Structure formats: C-alpha cells, structure tokens
C-alpha cells in the first residue's frame, strides 16, 4: 500500500537528484542528448569565483534570516499562545502575509522599494547591503507568520503545571521563560529551524524578482546561480554541478540539525517528566 507513494516520490524527487549528479558530468544545451565530459564542469565550478561569492551570500542570508525569523516568531508565538483579549484579532492580522504567494510578496516589495514610487525614495535595491537586507526582510515578512504559528502550537502544549510549580517556587516571568518555555520548545525550534534553513536556501523567487542577483552578482544565491547557468546561459551540465553542490550542502546541513537535536527519533517533548 505504501509502494505507489514511494515509487512516485523516487521518480519525481530522488531520481532527479541522482540524475542531476550524473548530468553534472555531461555537457548539454537543452537540445539533443547530454554528452559526457568527465570532471570538466566540477573543475570549472571549483575554480569559479562566482561559486565562492554565491556560497558566502547563501550562508550569510541563511544565518541572518534564521536569527531574524527565530527571535521574532518565538516571541510572537509564545505571546500569542497566552490568553490576552486582543490576541485573536492581532493573530488574524499577523496572518495576512500568508494569504499572498512568494511571487506576489516579492512583487509588492519590488514596487514599494521602487525609488520613484515606493515608501523609501532611495535606491535600496541598488546597493549591496540594501539588496541583502531587503531579501532578509521580505523573507521574514513572508515566513514569520508561519513560524509564529508553529511556536504558538508548541507553546500551547507546554503543561501548565510546570508554570504553576515554578510560580510556587517564586520564579519570575523571565526565569520561567528561560527555564521552562525555551527548553520545552526545543523540538519545535528544530522543526521550525530545519524548515527555515531549507526555506532560505531556496529564496529563489525573492531574488529573481527583487534583485535578479544584483547589484552585479552580490545577491546571486546558489539556486539563482544554477538558474542563470542553466536557463539563461543554457549550460545545463554546469547548472547540474551547482545543483549537486546545493543538494550536498542542504543534506549535510539538515543531517547535522537532525543529529544535534534528536528530531529524527521523533522523541516526545514530554521526555524526562
């Protein structure tokens, strides 16, 4: 009964990943059939300054986005898990960005950051740091509502007895937050973190629409480098080498996160109670 699902997934996701690795040893311009060229693409890739730059931008974007989104969605989520009267209304408004697609959101900020039209009458996207921060901000604007929900769900599952016990022991709000809320949200933070990291590796739409990798190639993250090499320059062998590199990086990263947190074992948050 599980077989159709596994076969479908292998055919459309795992298989192509293996095929990407094979294609990285070929030359192919999109027409005809790929032609084996050995290590040429990899040699070119590893000597390419664009790869170093792209890798640096990708890592910086991932780390900065992760910090930005985690801090805000953790605080908002824990706050929203409480029972303040205005909470429901505010939570509903916080959710608005979720009603728009990444494409729509990127277009919205493309318009709002337009120097002749938008909110800030300056060429924000024309400067390296401006373009970088714009991508981080737009990514956060879009995904913080989702991660807030994840943290809200996690915070709701923390047993109230823990807080009651802590209150009896005289622990203040801050102490309760650091000694109960944070440790109890460990698994939630991992789930959310894995999704954030994998998500920011793929900020493709935002980069494609907001900056086209610019100014110059300053915001050309790995997926954009792949897209450019493949679907703009029709060098699919080289694009596949970039893609394989991306898979290796993403898998290593998530394996590391899964290992570090014990997420794979699906252990209960209630552990040790």
């Amino acid at each position: 009964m599980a077989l159709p699902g596994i076969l479908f997934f292998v055919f459309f996701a795992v298989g192509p990943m293996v095929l990407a690795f094979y294609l990285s040893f070929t030359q192919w311009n999109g027409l005809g059939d790929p032609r084996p060229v050995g290590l040429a693409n990899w040699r070119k890739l590893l000597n390419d300054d664009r790869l170093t730059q792209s890798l640096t931008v990708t890592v910086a974007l991932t780390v900065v986005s992760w910090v930005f989104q985690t801090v805000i969605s953790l605080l908002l989520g824990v706050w929203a898990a409480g029972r303040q009267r205005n909470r429901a209304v505010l939570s509903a408004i916080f959710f608005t960005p979720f009603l728009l697609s990444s494409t729509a959101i990127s277009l919205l900020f493309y318009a709002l950051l337009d120097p002749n039209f938008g909110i800030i009458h300056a060429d924000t996207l024309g400067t390296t740091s401006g373009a970088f921060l714009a991508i981080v901000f737009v990514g956060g604007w879009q995904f913080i509502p989702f991660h807030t929900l994840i943290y809200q769900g996690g915070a709701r599952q923390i047993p109230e007895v823990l807080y009651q016990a802590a209150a009896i022991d005289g622990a203040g709000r801050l102490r309760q937050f650091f000694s109960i809320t944070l440790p109890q949200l460990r698994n939630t933070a991992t789930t959310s973190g894995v999704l954030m990291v994998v998500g920011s590796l793929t900020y493709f739409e935002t980069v494609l629409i907001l900056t086209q990798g610019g100014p110059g190639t300053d915001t050309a993250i790995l997926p954009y480098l792949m897209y450019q090499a493949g679907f703009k320059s029709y060098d699919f062998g080289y694009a596949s080498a970039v893609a394989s590199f991306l898979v290796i990086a993403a898998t290593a990263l998530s394996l590391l996160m899964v290992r570090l947190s014990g997420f794979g074992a699906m252990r209960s948050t209630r552990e040790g109670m």
Partner: protein
Amino acid sequence: MKTAPAPGPDRTAPRRRHWSRRANPLAGAGSVIWLAVVIVPVYAMISASLTHQSEALGHNALKPPSHPTLDNYDTVLHNGFGHLLWNTALVAAAVVVIVLALCVPLSYVAVRTRSVWSGAAFRLFLLGVAIPAQAVVVPLYLMITKLNLYDSLLAIILPTAAFAMPVSVLILTGTLRDISEDLYEAMGLDGASTTRMLFQLVIPLAKGGISTVVVYAALQAWNGLLFPLIFTQSDGPRVLTLGLFNYVSEFGVNIPALLASVVLSGVPIFVVYLVARRALVGGLMGVGGK
C-alpha cells in the same frame, strides 16, 4: 469584551495568576510593532492599487490617492486573470488529491509496520524534506521533455505533488502515531480488513492531520513559481504566480496595475481564509505541536 472560559476541569482561582494571563507590556509593545510591519505594506499596496497611473510617478506609496479609481483592477481583469485563477485552482486540487491518495496509505504503513523497509522509507522522506526543488529542475526538465509533458498543467502538478510529500508524510505519521493501539486491535478482532481499517478508523481519526496536509499541499501549489516558470511556456497552462511574474514585463512602469494584480491574487485565498480560518490556522499550528 469577555474572555471565553478556558476548558479543563481543574480551573481554580489561583491559576488566574498564571504568567500568560497577566498583562505583559513588553510583549504587547513588541506585537504592536510587528503589527505595523505587517499592516503598512498591505495598506500601501491597496492604496497604490487605487491610484491613477498618471499620478503614480514620483508618488509616495504611503499617501492615499487623491482620486481613487478601479481602472487598474479593470486592466488586470481584462488581461486573462480568470484563466490564470482557473489553472491555479486545477493545479492545487490535483496536487491535494495526489498527495492525499499517496501519503495517507504510506503513513499508515509506516506507523503500523515495524519492518526495516518501513523504517527506511520513513528515513527517505525525512531526508526528502531537505531536497531543494531548485536542485532538481534541470533533470526534471529533461524528464518532462522526454515524457512529452512540457508546457502542460501536468508538468506543474506532478513535481509539485512529489515535493509536497515529505512534509505531508511527517505530519500524517505524527497524527497516526496518536491513534491508540487498542482501537486497531479491537477492529482486528472484528475481522476488519486493512482497507476497512484505513477508511473507518484511520481517516476519521486523522482528520486534523489530513486537513493540515490539505492546506499545506494546496499552499505549495498556490505558491510555486519555479516549476511553472521552467516547465511551461504558452498561455494555455499558465498559472497565477507565473502570470504575476509576467505582468512585470507586460505592465513595465505601471506599478498601480501591478499592485492591483497582487491584491487580486490574494483575494481567493482570503475568501478561503474567512471560511476555513480554524482549519487553516489550527492545521498549520499542528506542524510544530508535535
């Protein structure tokens, strides 16, 4: 305004002192700041979409339009918006059906069987969460061309469904683990077949997880730009995201019309949100609740 009484039998007076129920001015202030961060762009978008194109140049998006107009919406609606919407709805529906049909039985097997194979399959999907779609578009492009699916809705539907599977399996196995072993045993004693168990026990009890998966898979289909951008080319199978993306070059500097199209693209999901808020929000919350 009254606070609704919280459920739970042991609600006693001392619990009113619980931290989450006392006013928290710092968190309150923080949430108001974030509220502004969310609201200002949305307000600017709606206001700008009502601005005349002639007024747009040198206009500050925060200023309300002096002569509000619906012309921009008219322009967008006469540019094939309905067709885009229809295609997107078709893709989303097909993706949801495929994901449910494949993932529910799969998760059931993964939870119920303790074999090396089901463990390996589960790990495969766990790792699958980390496969970025960008990494496989080149080989998928090759496969889709060879399968003669290029420039069709199926070229969008099939890979989108495959990439929605890992998270769906994680959500569903989480839900199915919570179904008590006794229930399976009781049904087994009654001589129920696996299929009957699936339809009469698993599906009714896993409603929460299933609705989360429906929301998640539909959003994936609704949001995707990459697959449509690379696997389609003509007007026929064009979906909403690609249509929006193309408006940039079509409308050029007509930013009000561009923003009107962005607003319109949010309307359908806003309607769904109004109708199914509880399922939508509750379902997504479940992703981190496990």
